[in-house]
């Protein structure tokens, strides 16, 4: 059980940290490159949203980031379970 909990926490942290920086990096790049407004997500789940209006730009990390982090945590725990079973 301990292995699975650690794997879940680390998987969630890995995805969360990477997504936060990647999302903000995307926003900075979009701002510098003059991209139009865009949104990455599916339905009500939004990973990152970039908005440009006449005077300013803004990047918003959406509810998709914690959800994706949780999903990656579960995936990592599942991977750990498979590895542990293989190891016997």
């Amino acid at each position, binding site marked *: 059980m*301990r*292995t699975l909990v*650690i*794997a879940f926490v*680390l*998987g969630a*942290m*890995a*995805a969360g*940290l*990477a997504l*936060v*920086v*990647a999302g*903000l*990096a995307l*926003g*900075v*790049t979009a701002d510098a490159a003059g991209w139009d407004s865009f949104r990455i997500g599916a339905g009500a789940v939004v990973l990152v949203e970039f908005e440009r209006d006449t005077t300013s730009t803004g990047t918003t990390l959406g509810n998709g980031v914690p959800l994706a982090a949780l999903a*990656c945590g579960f995936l*990592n725990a599942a*991977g*750990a379970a498979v*590895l*542990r079973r293989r*190891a016997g």
Partner: protein
Amino acid sequence: MIQARDEIELAPGVRLRGESIVDPVRRSAVPLNATARLVVAARTVEGAAAELTAAGASDGSRDALAFCGELNARGLLNVRIPLVARVLRRVAAIRYGLVLHAPVRRIDVSGPLTVAGAVAKPAAVLSLALLPVATFAGVAAVAAAVATGAAVVLHEVGHALALRRLPYALLLDGLRPELIHPRLSGRRAAVVAAAGPLLPALSAVALTLAVRPLAPVVAPMAAHALALSVLADDGRNACGLS
């Protein structure tokens, strides 16, 4: 990569004690028979081959190369190959479509600062290798290439900080650094394994939150967080899966 005239020596910190090679960092001892002791006592691979041949080996050179290669792979024996010879061997091998693997080099490190100094060289080579492509993509990409190298240094420093009060040594396998240490278990193993990926990743987050335009530059540092997954050695070690 290893050839007959290369110099060999026990890796720093590794000792011959009685009939064993003792590795105080891993807290292990590898027993040696009389023939193996002849190889370890030699100064070059061809010297070891001569000793083996004199001891009755049918192909002393092959045996000496194989044994030195095995000890080198375990980080117990360093092989000295001058830079020019290394380059010439690589070039010669590339003509046949082969990419030669440099021998593992073990370095004695006394603390996080010496780890940073030792890892800085391969990290700088990594950054320099990325520069030609990054230069075409602009200043931010050049800075990201530098951050890629810095992240490697931070990663190993993270492990070193978590290994406080434990013996450890640095293995350089080409451009890939690795800290070796006594076998750990439980919480300490998890902390040591996770500290490496976490230091560059958390530094990237902190830098991004402090100076938002730095986000694309420090993205390679944040990517180290992915080493926390079970797809990577650190992630598996943290979960006690290795």
